[in-house]
């Protein structure tokens, strides 16, 4: 039996004889591992902080809707909702809720997040909130999970939710592939400022992806490969794909217009071109790409979502 933990509590597997210590771990409030009392006799067990599955390769915790990086104390992707909302799940009387990347509103000693969407004092509060919200939305008095489980495969709402989930997961995986669970160390943002001078685009790229933390200035200066990127608008909407050797100077701040570059892969130019072509294969290309919810609109028209399997081998 796994005893689910909140924070800084022990989780013990009692499904084995008492002589076997399978897992007994203390966590820091944001999920970092403090003490592992069973490290010597440990049986492989991937369910860790808050009972969520931790990816051994990236160290990210799967909260269902999103992946959380305990090393950063934040989610890897912003919160989202099936319905088009400017700031999903936010409440203007709680400024912490406006940060869509934050984990439980930066108050992990008090709150839990059962599914990556909703942080409340108790899990049932989240479910109750979801039930009322879905009821008001004409979906019946059901939780999001119940809707997903009972909706027909062709139900547009269920499809949209699933697509958003895939997109969130893929973004995490791609970021992880390139930047390996990096974290900006103490003073990391000052390093970025010094490195980028007054270039806001350079600063934006580095602070999003942590290249300084991952590669160091030398790594950035000496990497001689090509980057495949996605340019997204201020609301995360897809705008275009591109390849470059110098992402830090590719666009002006005005052209970024509050959006950002998501680095999808890096490597030899021919390979990056091949990956980019595969991304263009399943979606129409045109001026409508800048529309909010472009991918959702195309899926509703019957187009398959992008393949997303662009991680370099």
């Amino acid at each position, binding site marked *: 039996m796994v005893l689910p933990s909140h924070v800084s509590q022990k989780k013990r597997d009692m499904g084995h004889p008492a002589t076997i210590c399978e897992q007994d771990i203390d966590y820091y409030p944001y999920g970092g591992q403090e003490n592992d009392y069973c490290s010597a006799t440990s049986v492989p067990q991937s369910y860790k902080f808050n009972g969520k599955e931790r990816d051994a390769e990236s160290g990210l915790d799967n909260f269902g809707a999103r992946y959380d990086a305990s090393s950063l104390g934040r989610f890897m992707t912003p919160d989202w909702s099936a319905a088009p909302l400017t700031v999903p799940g936010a409440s203007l009387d709680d400024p912490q809720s406006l940060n869509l990347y934050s984990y439980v509103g930066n108050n992990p000693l008090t709150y839990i997040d059962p599914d990556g969407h909703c942080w409340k004092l108790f899990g049932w509060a989240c479910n109750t909130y979801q039930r009322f919200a879905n009821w008001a939305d004409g979906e019946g008095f059901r939780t999001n999970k119940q809707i997903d489980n009972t909706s027909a495969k062709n139900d547009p709402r269920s499809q949209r939710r699933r697509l958003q989930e895939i997109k969130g997961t893929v973004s995490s995986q791609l970021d992880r592939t390139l930047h390996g669970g990096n974290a900006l160390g103490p003073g990391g943002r000052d390093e970025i400022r010094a490195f980028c001078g007054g*270039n806001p685009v350079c600063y934006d790229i580095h602070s999003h992806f942590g290249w300084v933390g991952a590669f160091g200035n030398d790594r950035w200066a000496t990497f001689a490969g*090509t980057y495949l990127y996605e*340019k997204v608008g201020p609301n995360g909407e*897809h*705008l*275009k*794909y*591109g*390849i*470059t*050797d*110098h992402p830090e*100077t*590719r*666009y*002006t*701040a*005005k*052209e970024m217009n509050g959006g950002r570059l998501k680095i999808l892969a890096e490597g030899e*130019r021919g390979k990056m*071109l091949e990956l*980019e*072509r595969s991304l*263009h*294969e399943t979606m129409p*290309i*045109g*001026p409508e*790409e*800048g529309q909010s919810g472009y991918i959702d609109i195309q899926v509703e028209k019957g187009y398959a979502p992008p393949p997303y399997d662009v991680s370099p081998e």
Partner: protein
Amino acid sequence: MQYQLVVQFQANSREDFDRLVGFEQSLTKSLSGSAMVDGHDFGSGEFNIFVLTDSPSSTFERVRKEFAGRGEREDMRAAYRELGGEDYIILWPPGLKEFSVS
């Protein structure tokens, strides 16, 4: 390289993508030494080829000749800016008042 030259085309299909990537690759060969083709972006109805150069006007002349030699429709726009700068100086077509990258 001090300047970024942007060569822009309208593009809305896979065929446009393959055609313009082919053009970009031919530019990479023909400009080698004097300028560096840094890549492209594709989406939102346009295809941009980005070239880093110290002499944008003469580099663009070579780009234009290369493009004309392919016998394709000339829907090309071009402008350059200082690396790190915000404002474009328009090179082509004559009379174009505004240039932007989406």
